[in-house]
């Protein structure tokens, strides 16, 4: 009765093998490495980059243990931090000649020392949280009301223009918070305006109000459109953050949306938090200026002459210099939107800009006077300007809708629109949560967590072995298997391990032994009641199962609640807690039964089992003799 069919043993062996394989990378530790990734979306990191890295290392006389191309970055692993630092300098020199305009991010990192065949199996060590490896964590809140107000403002401007074009005479358009109020003299114009709105402004919903002799229309942004605005604002901010963080040279930054209006930024290994905060909190500004077209300027562009008085020299993103006048035509404040699109006639990719009322007026005048000349849109970040685009003005542009086209790919159009928005409409952000953990504290936390788990485990294992003898040994082995599987699953899922996570690991082991205690006590009880050893083992496992299931489900409910409602440290705890309960069911019941069956199952005439003292209340003497 206590025998497992072969397939059950097969499952156990497979689980152990897989568990062992995926736990293995954790033992190899980490080696210093240099990681090269792209700083710009247009930059590709491929085998060519890898060759350049190898070349750079060779000329510097350094040998890397491994150089690999993985997930869009080249990683070179070194034996010592000394080599790592030297290599970083060498690669930096070779790949990033101009520090002011980096096309690659060269960052220090730690890489697993596990052999390549393990990496090929996607077996990686557990992903350590910031509290274990040190670094910075920020949570930023995007000011959505501000984004919506801005949108309403731009829509109000559009409304004015369109109503004028359609000859609908209104008695004033004003923005009130996130809604727009339109006043009319009579009902007929109000109806006309309503038709225009329904026709051209799908994003707005209107409510009619009659106040005395006044006809009033209140337009507000439809919830659906508002969501789009918020989505865009968030994506916008995430992209901007990405660009800025590239500058910091962080190996594995995490930038994630959380909820509807929040962004989480995690920068492992970053120590200079002041700089990180400075860079994250920076705002970009946008300026529109005219390009100087004089012959002196041409000479300055090609580098053969000095930059003429009253002008400045900026670089285009392609590296092409542009000489622009110092006088600013427009700033990003006047730009309300920038979207990639397609020209309706030529089907060329375009970038479509929308200006507010004041911007449109200025733009109309400037374009009328400068047809045929070039105009530059410059993005300033940290006092450094970069020309995003410098198109030729083909005709006078009125109405505040500007289309930039020509010699652009769809990707470029997207990038340009994004950059323009970055300088103008990114909704303001605020840091609402911040955590910094020094590297020494991280290492200490790992040691603390490790010691807690180890000593706790040993204490429990020794107690089990003493109290339940061989069955206790089986239970302890099952507990070790539980730990193995838990670490394997965490490594496989690449779930973030934090200090509370390690605490959960210890706690789960403490709780998992509960199942084995239940089983062992039950077996003892059956023996006490006079069952034969084989029957006692069988009944002990069978009857304990229902109880184990019940108790694990209740614990799991608590774990799931923590997972659902917890954040930050609690989540790390909950993930390990829930996974640990799952693995404990397998190891404590299925696996330990397998061990017992293997040991005792084949003995037909089993006289006694080694499960410690089976004390019988009615026969004290016989128990002692046992």
């Amino acid at each position, binding site marked *: 009765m206590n025998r497992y069919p072969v397939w059950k043993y097969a499952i156990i062996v497979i689980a152990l093998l897989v568990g062992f394989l995926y736990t293995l990378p954790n033992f190899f530790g980490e080696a210093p490495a240099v990681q090269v990734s792209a700083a710009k979306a247009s930059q590709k990191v491929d085998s060519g980059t890898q060759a350049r890295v190898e070349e750079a290392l060779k000329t510097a006389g350094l040998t890397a243990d491994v150089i690999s191309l993985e997930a869009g970055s080249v990683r070179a692993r070194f034996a010592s931090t000394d080599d790592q630092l030297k290599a970083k300098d060498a690669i930096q020199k070779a790949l990033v000649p101009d520090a002011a305009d980096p096309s690659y991010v060269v960052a220090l990192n730690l890489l697993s020392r596990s052999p390549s065949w393990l990496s090929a199996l996607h077996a990686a060590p557990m992903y350590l949280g910031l509290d274990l490896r040190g670094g910075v964590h920020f949570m930023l809140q995007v000011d959505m009301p501000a984004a919506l107000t801005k949108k309403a403002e731009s829509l109000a401007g559009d409304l004015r223009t369109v109503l004028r074009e359609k000859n609908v005479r209104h008695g004033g358009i004003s923005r009130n918070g996130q809604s727009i109020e339109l006043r009319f003299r009579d009902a007929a114009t109000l109806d006309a305006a309503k038709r225009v709105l329904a026709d051209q402004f799908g994003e707005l919903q209107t409510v009619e109000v009659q106040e005395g002799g006044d006809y009033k229309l209140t337009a507000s942004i439809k919830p659906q459109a508002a969501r789009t605005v918020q989505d865009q604002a968030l994506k916008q901010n995430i992209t901007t953050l990405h660009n800025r963080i590239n500058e910091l040279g962080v190996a594995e930054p995490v930038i994630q949306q959380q909820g509807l209006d929040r962004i989480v930024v995690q920068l492992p290994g970053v120590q200079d938090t002041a700089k990180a905060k400075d860079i994250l909190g920076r705002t970009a500004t946008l300026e529109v200026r005219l390009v100087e077209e004089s012959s002196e300027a041409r000479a300055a562009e090609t580098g053969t002459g000095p930059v003429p008085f009253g002008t400045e020299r900026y670089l285009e993103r392609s590296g092409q210099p542009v000489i622009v006048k110092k006088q600013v035509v427009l700033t990003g404040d006047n730009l309300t939107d920038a979207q990639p699109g397609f020209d309706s006639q030529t089907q060329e990719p375009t970038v479509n800009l929308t200006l507010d009322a004041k911007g449109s007026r200025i733009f109309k005048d400037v374009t009328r006077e400068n047809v045929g000349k070039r105009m530059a849109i410059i993005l300033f970040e940290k006092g450094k300007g970069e020309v995003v685009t410098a198109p030729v003005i083909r005709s006078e542009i009125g109405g505040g809708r500007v289309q930039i086209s020509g010699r652009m790919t769809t990707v470029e159009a997207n990038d340009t629109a994004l950059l323009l928005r970055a300088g103008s409409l990114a909704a303001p952000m605020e*840091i609402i949560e*911040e955590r910094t953990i020094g590297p020494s504290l991280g290492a200490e936390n790992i040691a603390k967590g490790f010691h807690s788990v180890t000593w706790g485990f040993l204490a429990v294992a020794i107690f089990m072995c003493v109290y339940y003898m061989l069955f206790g040994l089986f239970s302890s082995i099952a507990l070790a298997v539980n730990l193995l599987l838990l670490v394997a699953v965490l490594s496989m899922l690449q779930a973030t391990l934090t200090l*509370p996570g390690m605490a959960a690991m210890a706690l789960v082991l403490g709780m998992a032994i509960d199942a084995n205690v239940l089983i062992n006590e039950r077996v003892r009880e059956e023996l006490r009641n006079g069952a034969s050893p084989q029957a006692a083992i069988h009944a002990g496992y069978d009857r304990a199962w229902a109880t184990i299931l019940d108790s694990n489900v209740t614990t799991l409910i608590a774990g799931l609640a923590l997972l659902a409602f917890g954040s930050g440290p609690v989540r790390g705890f909950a993930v390990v807690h829930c996974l640990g309960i799952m693995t404990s069911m397998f190891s404590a019941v299925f696996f330990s039964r397998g061990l017992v069956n293997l040991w005792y199952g084949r003995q037909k005439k089993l006289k006694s089992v080694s499960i410690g003292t089976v004390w019988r209340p009615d026969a004290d003497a016989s128990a002692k003799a046992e």
Partner: protein
Amino acid sequence: MEFFKIKRDIPFMRHALVFNVVSFLTFAAAVFFLFSRGLHLSVEFTGGTLMEVSYSQPADLGAVRGAIAKLGYQDVQVQNFGTARDVLIRMPAVKGVSSAQQSDKVMATLKEADAAASLRRTEFVGPQVGDELAADGLKALAFVVVGIMIYLALRFEWKFAVAAIIANLHDVIIILGFFAFFQWEFSLPVLAAVLAVLGYSVNESVVIFDRIRENFRRYRKMDTVAVIDNAITSTISRTIITHGSTQLMVLSMLLFGGATLHYFALALTIGILFGIYSSVFVAAAIAMWLGIRREDLVKGGGGARKEDDPNDPNAGAVV
């Protein structure tokens, strides 16, 4: 080895009233302290900035306090953290000053006073996040309570569900009472510990209830009190051994886990100790007061039982 050589069923239920009175008094004291002293909430809940600064020499807390007071921040708490060389500084959020500026300023001042001061970690939580965390914590608690009650009501009967939840919420309140009385810091990990304890100590009640159900089936002639007494007696060795094992783990955390895990482990310790007490002495007693009967659990005789649990090894044992 055998610790529990119990010859006869211990008449736990005879003293049920006494235990319930004791429980009620502890509970009342916990509630009293919760209201009179309140919980000492960590910055995660209240919002504010927390800084851990490490010195090469044992730190002079007075000097640190003085230096920060000069910056004009109000209600700043300075205390040792773990060792005498580590200092924990807690500052409430100041309107109009970003956390970045606040912690940078404080650190600059401290460095001026002692160049060896190094920042080990900072934590800033905006007030809006704090409120959310508190709300989420309560939601999680509600989710656990409702989830466990539904599960127990399905698996057993509503009376057991109510008894188990009352018994274990009473543990939770007592843990909170301890934190309020000693003004220990109540942080997110502690909250996690409290909820984990809730799930864990319900286990205890489940094990005993399982046994009560089994006994109802097996010993047709026993009355409810005797059935409960027997159930508790026959599971008590397991109860104490498992809790002991879990406590060994928690003890290891308490000893090796350092200051960060200190209160977490402490909450678990109290939870485990009171968990034993409440499931042995309180849960079953409440179930008894609620009037559990054989008929509640063993429905409609033999046929229903087979439906319940076709593999029930007790099926043959019923007389």
